[in-house]
């Protein structure tokens, strides 16, 4: 794959989408890593992280999470909810998830000091919420969803309802 690449860098984006055990949640999970494809960038990676034998220039993980809108559903019930009306709910969630993952990756790739002022990150005051037993920073929010950065730097797009329930 790299042999025929003339570009200076390769961005690998690995993605998986699934229903959680019990079928209550749709998850779209993604990891991205930027690799050098020339000596200049390889040297930068080596200088910045001498112990990294993969010469990574950038790396992060992203998760989109959406529950089916029912509580304590059995798996069969959750499956029925997702798939009713020719899968209207699961299709809508998938489409939203695709857009959200793309947005998260782009947001994260632009989140560096020189660009902070220009991104949506800087427009929001720092707000911390409790999520999955961790303090997560709210990077942005819509009426329905939070964009969160967890302490390990990874990004999440989660519905606000989910946090309220915690």
């Amino acid at each position, binding site marked *: 794959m790299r042999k025929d690449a003339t570009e200076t860098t390769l*961005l690998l984006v690995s993605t998986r989408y699934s229903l959680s055990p019990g079928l209550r949640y749709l998850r779209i999970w993604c990891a991205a890593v930027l690799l050098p494809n020339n000596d200049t960038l390889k040297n930068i990676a080596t200088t910045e992280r001498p112990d990294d034998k993969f010469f990574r220039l950038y790396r992060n993980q992203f998760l989109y999470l959406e529950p089916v809108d029912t509580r304590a559903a059995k798996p069969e019930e959750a499956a029925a909810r997702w798939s009713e009306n020719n899968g209207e709910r699961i299709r809508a969630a998938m489409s939203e998830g695709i857009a959200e993952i793309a947005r998260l990756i782009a947001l994260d790739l632009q989140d560096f000091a020189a660009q902070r002022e220009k991104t949506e990150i800087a427009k929001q005051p720092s707000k911390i919420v409790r999520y999955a037993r961790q303090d997560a920073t709210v990077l942005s929010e819509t009426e329905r969803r939070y964009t969160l950065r967890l302490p390990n730097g*990874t990004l999440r797009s989660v519905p606000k309802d989910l946090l309220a329930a915690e």
Partner: protein
Amino acid sequence: MFRSACVLVAWFLLEGAASGQTFRIPASNETLKAVRSTRVILALKQDEIIADYVRPRSNGAATPQENMPKVSPGFLTDLAIGFAFDAFADAVGNDAISAGRARRAEEQSEPVRKALQGYAFRSGYERALGEKLRAIDWLKVTEIRYAPTGAPVEECARMRPKRRFSS
């Protein structure tokens, strides 16, 4: 070369995602200045939605979470995220318990898979990513393509995690 790329993707799943550790490597200013062009390679080893299941621990005992009669929504969130990573790293266990659970999850999720027939995840994802990534000035995206499906990606997905990821 793609095999190396896949091993790399699996590697960074394994070595840094534990809670409390910084997983993210931000692009430095030097990197931003030096990038002249970027090829985006998408790895997606599935053509339909997967139903995950609670995997037994390696000693055969069920996870404590699975035996809890009642679980809070907060716990479910945690569980969902944790298993997203676990399931990616070890999609299907080899033992009979895992096989049974996998089969049951497949059966339960069949209506969802049927409802999603004709849904074009790949093309939609490529289009959405393309739009967003091409708009990033410093990245200078020249091309976006899917990695060839086949053995290397499968191999990555089978690699077992060294430890469980909590987030």
